[in-house]
């Protein structure tokens, strides 16, 4: 049980700055997901919290105690690695008991804690096996078990599900969520998978090139993406982005094709400003007036259908509709978004224009 505070933390590898100043205070018991594309610095940040990587600048505090110069073993954290990092020469029981033995916990209590974890994770039958005699999913559970028997102040997960097949991944995701709800231990979870992030997180920190693009609840991040990067990274298929300009009265967005979409709130101060207009594919619906697209490809996913269309000006436009397809490639389709589903971003900085 503890808070984890990350204050203006930086990390450089020689001249390369991998983490460029990140600030976040994680509440006691909160599940924070670090989300971002490969190479954006998620693991580096997590490893700095764990003590496996030195901190170039800033401060990290766990449970109110600054840990910058503490060894991993003194930080009271447990970590689940992407490749599980089990001890190959030890049984499942010994893998889980290792950290407890080192901490001098009495044998009977070690037994009790491991048995309890094994029961929660349904590993009871495998306690005498070696990791090499387990399936990928079972190894993953042992890695989880090794973390929970420690009863640490915080859990750190580095892409713990990415070595599993799709079905097992979904299953373990649900299990991790259930486990964390039940244990209520502060968790930092690294992933590049937006579905994992949306389903697991209390809050998501979206990272890009070593900076935090946005910190917010899954719904905030989805509904009000703070930047074009976040808008494109979250949501599937990704958000449509069109070039546009606010008209001279500040009441509508003008698109190169000649359409004009009225803004929910007028922006007289920004009249004439070039912008990027974002519309999620799932917010476009067939209408009498709006964007006229030529359908290039139709993907029927069963529950819904993705239409790949092209505007007269040549820009691509994706539309996601519920149900089975009602059009074919070559068709013309008129679609339009509700006024409150428009996202405006600065054309230069890519930051969201609030309001």
């Amino acid at each position, binding site marked *: 049980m503890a808070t984890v505070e990350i204050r203006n933390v930086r990390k450089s590898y020689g001249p390369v700055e991998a983490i460029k100043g990140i600030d976040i205070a994680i509440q006691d018991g909160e599940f924070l997901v670090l989300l971002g594309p490969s190479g954006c610095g998620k693991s580096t940040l997590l490893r700095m919290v*764990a003590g496996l990587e030195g901190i170039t600048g800033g401060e990290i505090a766990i449970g109110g105690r600054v840990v910058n110069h503490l060894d991993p073993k003194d930080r009271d954290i447990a970590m689940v690695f992407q490749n599980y990092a089990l001890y190959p020469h030890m049984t499942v029981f010994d893998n889980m008991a290792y950290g407890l033995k*080192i901490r001098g916990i009495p044998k009977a209590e070690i037994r009790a804690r491991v048995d309890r974890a094994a029961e929660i994770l349904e590993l009871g039958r495998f306690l005498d096996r070696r990791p090499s005699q387990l399936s990928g999913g079972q190894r993953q559970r042992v890695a989880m078990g090794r973390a929970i028997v420690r009863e640490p102040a915080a859990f750190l997960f580095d892409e713990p599900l990415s070595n599993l097949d799709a079905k097992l991944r979904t299953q373990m995701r649900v299990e991790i969520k259930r486990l964390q709800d039940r244990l209520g231990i502060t968790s930092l979870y690294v992933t590049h998978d937006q579905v994992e992030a949306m389903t697991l997180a209390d809050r998501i920190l979206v990272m890009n090139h070593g900076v935090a693009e946005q910190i917010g609840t899954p719904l905030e991040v989805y509904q009000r993406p703070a930047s074009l990067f976040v808008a494109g990274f979250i949501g599937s298929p990704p958000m449509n982005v069109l070039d546009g300009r606010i008209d001279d009265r500040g009441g509508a967005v003008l698109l190169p094709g000649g359409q004009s979409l009225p803004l929910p709130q007028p922006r007289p101060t920004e009249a004439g400003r070039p912008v990027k207009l974002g519309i999620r594919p799932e917010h476009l619906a067939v209408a009498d007036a709006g964007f006229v697209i030529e359908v290039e490809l139709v993907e029927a996913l069963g529950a819904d259908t993705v239409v790949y269309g092209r505007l007269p000006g040549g820009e691509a436009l994706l539309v996601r509709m519920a149900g089975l397809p009602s059009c074919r490639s070559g068709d013309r389709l008129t679609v339009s978004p509700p006024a409150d589903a428009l996202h405006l971003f600065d054309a230069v900085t890519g930051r969201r224009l609030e309001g």
Partner: protein
Amino acid sequence: MRGVALLDKRRRGFLFNPPHASPLRHAQPTKDHPLQRRVTFDNRLLPYLLLAPQVAVTLVFFIWPAAQAIWQSVHLQDAFGIRSEFVWFENFTHVLSDPNYLDTLKVTIVFSVAVTVLAMGVALLLAVLADSKIKGARAYKTLLIWPYALAPAVAAVLWMFIFNPDIGSFGRALRALGYDWDYRLNGGQALVMVIMAASWKQVSYNFIFFLAGLQAIPRSVMEAASIDGAGPVRRFWTITFPLLSPTTFFLLVVDMVYAFFETFGTIHALTQGGPGKATETLIFRVYQDGVVNNDLGGSSAQSVILMVIVIALTAVQFRFVERKVHYA
């Protein structure tokens, strides 16, 4: 990467050769073996031809001398090598009841155990250092591998230049400090010196294997252990060392065999088994009795005993490597 790609290309080129150009062809699936797609030989003689050099080498350099040793070990030859007489196991009983031979056996055991422990201990220590993030690790690794490329006699001359009490730098320093250093007179000192020289040679070999073994341990496993609370020493003994056990066991046998059989050159160049018989090991005695003292029967009996020892060591190695030491 590049090597693999090249190899792959070459192999593919070979397989894609038109059938008449290649002595190999793919067997067509037949009624009996519908799925058989092995490579078979058109030419019945070719496989034997390909094997011949290997078989010849084994015959000429191993089976032939071994057979000769066994034959001679049950014969007694006169001093001129003209007549020989079949004597059953007399040579063996003679050798094994000779108190000198038992002394030599003792020296050999002390020597071999010391060389093995020293060579492995030092190599492991150096490998652990090289595996950690130290500056100049590359240069250091290269330097450590060099001694292996040195002929034993050359290495021994180097050691002599260091330890000779009259001309050796270290030997003279010891004497200057008032220590009575002279391995030519003191048997204990001579033994220590040949042990050091023989170990030094083997350290590089062990080092390469230990380093490879260490680098095969995933970094995250060590990180998990440090998060679990293990300090460097405990990590070494509970994670690194057990995970190295296949390597350790392999090297244990290799080093024993080395100490028993391949240190002749070192001993010959440094002490010739002396002073007295202080540094005479079994292999050195085989040479001494056979070549110097011309006792072919006794020397052959000793060779056969050594052969049995090396066969036993190898058998133990194979059994263990196949079973026990595997964890993954």
